[in-house]
Structures are given as C-alpha cells and as structure tokens.
C-alpha cells in the first residue's frame, strides 16, 4: 500500500523526524512494525492515543485506522480515552500485595478522592490499576510515565502526590 501524505501534520517537527527514523529501522515493506513505537510517541505528545492521532499514525504507516485501533486496544499502555496530567499506574499483582500494596492503594484512592479508572476534578491525576511491573522486590510499586516509584508507604505516597501536584 502507498504511504499517503497525512492531511494534517500532528507530530512536532522533532517527533516527526523521530517517527521517520523509527519507520526506517525495519526491512522494506515491514513498516507496520513501527506501529507500537509510534503509538508511544503519539501518547508522549498528546497524553493519550486520540482517534485523530491514531488516524494520523495510520497515515504515516500507510495502514487503515482500524488496523491502528485494533492494536491500540489490545495493549494496556495506550490510553484510548483522555486522561489527567499524571496517570498513576498502580501494580495490583501478588508480590506487591504481599508487601502491603492493597493497603497503600486504599490510602492513595482516599488521598486523591477517586477510584480506579477515574480522573480528579482538577484534571491532575488519573488512577489505573496495572498488572506486574517487574519490580517485585521493591513493592509496592507504581509508575507515572517512565518513572517507577518503589517501596511505597502511605507517607511516601503523600510525598509523591505533593511533589507531582506542584
């Protein structure tokens, strides 16, 4: 399939250059391999994988929007609905729970005044529960964008929320 020129450029010039670099990493004809990396790039810029964004990524790769959407919805990292400024991805899996993960999570929900999947009224925080983040020896753990916050306690959670709220 021919790569169409997108009607509207959505990526910043830096990200557009980076996306072209990513697409070129794969063998000729295998450009669809860049889909997951491009969705990450989209989310990094927009905060979520918006429908227009997914259509745009599809155009960059010469694939149909549905092909992008079916992939984005399979994986847990892509936010297909708008989210708050900080998305807290909290590990709910066994080893973290052994270390008090459920108690700390209850505190976090209380502190933010929201439940799993919700966003605070001021749009600052969205709370998501995720499965194992591969940091089980340092549990409880949550992640905000690329950063891991480990060995969580109620006090530590309060400090982190204060810090992120600034």
């Amino acid at each position, binding site marked *: 399939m021919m790569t169409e020129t997108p009607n509207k450029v959505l990526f910043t010039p830096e990200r557009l250059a980076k996306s072209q670099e990513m697409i070129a990493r794969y063998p000729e004809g295998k450009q669809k391999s860049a889909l997951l990396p491009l969705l990450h790039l989209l989310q990094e810029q927009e905060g979520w994988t918006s429908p227009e964004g997914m259509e745009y990524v599809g155009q960059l790769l010469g694939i149909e929007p549905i092909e992008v959407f079916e992939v984005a919805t399979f994986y847990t*990292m892509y936010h297909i609905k708008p989210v708050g400024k900080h998305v807290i991805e909290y590990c709910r899996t*066994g080893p973290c729970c*052994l270390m008090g993960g459920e108690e700390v999570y209850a505190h976090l929900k209380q502190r933010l005044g929201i439940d799993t999947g919700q966003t605070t009224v001021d749009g600052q925080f969205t709370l998501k529960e995720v499965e*194992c983040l*591969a940091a089980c*020896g340092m*549990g409880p753990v949550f992640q905000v964008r*690329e950063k891991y916050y480990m060995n969580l306690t109620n006090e530590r959670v309060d400090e982190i929320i204060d810090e992120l709220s600034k």
Partner: protein
Amino acid sequence: MATKILTEHIHVPGIETFDVYRKQGGYTAVEKAVKTMTPETIVEEVKKAGVRGRGGAGFPMGMKWSFLAKPEGVPRYLVCNADESEPGTFKDHYLMKNNPHLLIEGMIVSSFALGANTSFIYVRGELMYVINILEQAIAEAKAKGFLGKNILGSGYDLELVVQPGGGAYICGEETALLESLEGKRGNPRNKPPFPAVKGLYQSPTVVNNVESIATTPWIINNGGDAYAAVGIGRSTGTKLISASGHINKPGVYEIELGLPVEDFLYADEWCGGIRPGHKFKALVAGGSSVPILPANLALTLANGDKRLMSYESLSEGGFQTGTMLGSGGFIVFDETACIVRNTWNFSRFYHHESCGQCSPCREGTGWMEKVLHRIEYGHGHQQDIDLLVDVARKIEGNTICPLGDAAAWPVASAIRHFRDEFQWHIDHPTEATQPGAVYRGEMALV
C-alpha cells in the same frame, strides 16, 4: 566465592558506559568471535555450555540455535525477549538497567553465530527508561565500531533495534512477541511452523531471553566446558533469582545452580531469612505460573534430601510434591499470607492477560477468577473447590500457547496443598472475611 557470570561487574560505578564496561574486559568476546571464530564454533561452545533458556521454559539454547533454518537468500533474525512480565520476576529489568552493554555484547556475538544482520530487543513498554539506557549503549557501541557496518573490519554487519511493547504479558510468549514486533495484536501463533523455520516476517528466527543471551560473552571468553563446570548436572551455570515477598533481603541474586533452597532462603548472602517474628508458609519458586509449594516441600524432597535450586531438583516429585525453576521468580509467603487471596489475585492476572484466542483459556481464566473471588469474599459454595480443579484441568494442555497451563497450575497446586484453607473460607465466611483474617489451622510452618 561463588562464580559470577552475569553480575561480576554490575556494581562497578559507571558500568553502564562503554568505557568502564570495556575496561572491565567488555567486548573482548566480540573481538574473539568475529576475528577468530566461525558461527559454527560459537554454536558448538553454546551447546557444550548446556545453558538452558532462562525465560522460563528451560529449553537448551544451543539446540534451539541449531534448529535455525538457513535457506539461501533469506534473512535470519535474532530477537531478544525482554518482555519480562511474569509476576515475581524482575531480573532482566535489573540486568539491562545496570549493565546494558552485557546484553548488547551478547546480542552481537549471538547474532554473528546465527548469521543475523538485523536483530531486535523487544522490551516491555513499561520499561521505557531502560529502553533509553539500551539505546544509549547501542549508540556508544556503534561509535566504537562494535556495531553497524563491517564490525571491527571483519566484514560482518549488524543493526540492533530496541522495540517497545505496549503492555501485554502474552507478548512474552515467543510467537505472540513476533506478532507484536510486526505491529499486530499479540496473539500467539499455532506451531508448527516454529519460529526457527518461519518466525519474524516469516523468516527463520531465534527468540532468546535476556539472561540467556547475556551468558554468551562469558561462554565465548571462557569456553562452553568452563560454563558447564559450574552448576549441577544438566542445570549448568548460574541463574539470576528475583527474590520477593516476606524475606529480609528482597532483590536479584546470581546463584550457582544446585544451591540448596534452604541456603538461598536463610543465608545472609541471599534472602537473609523470613522477616523477623514470622514463619515460612509457602513458596512460589519460579514465577507465578509454577506450582506453589508448602514450606516443608519447598525445602525438602520426599526422601528427606534437601531440595536444590536446579531444574531437576525443583521439579522432583512432579506436580504432586514438586514445582519448577521457571523464570526464577522466588516469591516467599509467611503465615500472614492468605493462599486463597493470593490464588484469586494470580487468577485475576491470567484472566486479564489472556489474549482471548482459545476458548478454554478465555472462558476458563474468567471462570476461575470469579469462583475464587466468591470464595475469598465469603460466598463460596461447597462444590466450588472441585469446580476449580475441574476448570483448571480443562484449560491445561488445551490452548495454543502455555498461558493456559500457566493459569491452571497456580490454582490446581494451591488446592492440592492448601485445600483446608479453601474449605475454611467456604465453611466460615464471616470469620474468613474479617480484615486481615488468615487461616490458622493445621499446617507445616517452618
């Protein structure tokens, strides 16, 4: 002093940089491989080493390499599986974050041995910061001539691509990983054809775990026989163990295979024992998928001998009294842990992570989660325990990929060894659902 094959230099300040890694003897395996060895001799050394797949399956790596089809004019690929997501496992995360060049060096010599000119490291997307570390290391190696065109003047070309996943446990299964790497949903493929014949882009492909690939520089430098001299029997070499749960010193440890479980759990060099004031109740020795064992069976074999940290010893007794080394995710439970709650937690994980392709797994994982949930929350029926055993049995062996087995084993084993605890939840729902309530009936705590 125990042999350290993967972590000898991991605490050297600056080891993540090319220069420090090089000063510690890094990249000598690349020099040796491309200048003095042939791909065939490298494969031979890896075979002699007897190193087994460290992702969990334990399949001999050299044998996997020798299955790679080599049709004329068709590219071959090496893909490193860095989609570490098995609950309890965090060793690849540790290794890549702290010593990225070890993996890069392993990728170069392994790619050379397999005749691959483009190789991939598929890292779970959550570890984006580790991806940045790896990309930095790759750029350094390339600038020094160890990657790219004509490596060290040998005529061998290699490009390394770090690919992020999107968040899906199933992509740790090698054919799902390949689908994902092609930009698709991570649905496992039917086998055959095996990846060695038709893998990435329908070309011959080898998929190896991070830890497996990281052994290759040492094997090339020291020889396969030297590697095989470490460890015990067919469990050669060392293994990274991710230790978590109710122990004094959680973390990643490199052990020589064959170390008694008891030493690993209690000695200060490793886990440092159960946290103060508590007793050892149960162990998941190799990641959430492997059968859980009560304390006594974790430490001792049926004949009274000490159980060892090796593929053979951990599986001694089959599933009746044994378990598996798996990925080395060593999760320790003391007497405060509720086995029912943990089993429900694990089955929620597998339900969430099932790709939905095969009905026994798609339906069965959800069914098990629901039944376990109602037992845990005080609404269990008398027939529920047998129902769980039945559902688990009907998933096992009836799915395209091993996720079905991985979902069934934790449930079946928890019931096998802790049936009274499940029964107590059903018989005493009011008591069992009190905050912090845990079954305190008769069981062998250590």
